[in-house]
């Protein structure tokens, strides 16, 4: 199974918000499928999800994406994944420029 091979989601997301040099919070990041479509441009990305198994996949994929970033010196974005629920977001107030509800409302 393949999701959005045309990349419509990435294109429209970048048309809706400029994440360059921004702090981004992704709510319900799951396995990080959407995360890697924008995280390369942000200055900080934090994705959280209550699903431990999905986060395990996201963290495993991070190694691949960090290697890609290392080859491109213009990238190299800090990305963090956390186990949390939207009912109690474990960050202090006014931390992020952008929040993305990723298929989670």
């Amino acid at each position: 199974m393949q999701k959005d091979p045309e990349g419509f989601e990435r294109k429209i997301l970048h048309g809706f918000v400029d994440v360059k040099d921004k702090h981004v919070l992704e709510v319900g990041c799951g396995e990080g499928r959407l995360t890697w479509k924008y995280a390369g441009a942000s200055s900080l990305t934090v994705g959280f999800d209550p699903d431990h198994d999905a986060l395990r996949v996201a963290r495993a994929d991070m190694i691949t994406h960090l290697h890609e970033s290392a080859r491109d010196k213009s990238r190299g974005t800090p990305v963090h994944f956390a186990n949390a629920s939207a009912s109690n977001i474990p960050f202090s107030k006014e931390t992020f420029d952008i929040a993305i509800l990723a298929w989670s409302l």
Partner: protein
Amino acid sequence: MQHESMVHALDEIRRTLKPNGILIDLRPVESNWSVEVSSSTGQQVAGRLNDMPMGLADDEAAFHAMREVESRGWYIKEKEDEFAFFYYWDTPSEMKEFMEDEWEDFEKMEDEVYLKVKSLWSQANADARVRVRVKMLITRWKKL
């Protein structure tokens, strides 16, 4: 997620956003998504899925929550658009299995549509795949 939980989550997100911060709400919406066969020679529509009550209720709860936080003056809508998001499978049986495992509560494919997509796929080019056209909604909100 229930309505009250959604409103609480939107308040939590608001708390963590900087002044004038941006919230992007990106999600699929039920809309009797079409089932298609796609190949190098083009696309053919086999039929449409049936929206299930739970999926429709989830959509209504999400729209209700956003209307409520807007009326509370927490966010203002700046921009909204729809777009297509495609799921692809190599065969109709793989698609059917996925739907029964993952979309059971949200979308149902009638036997008539399954038979039609199987027929179209078997007659199409060797590179033909089956796909579902999911209706997506993206909305940009600004924190007030």
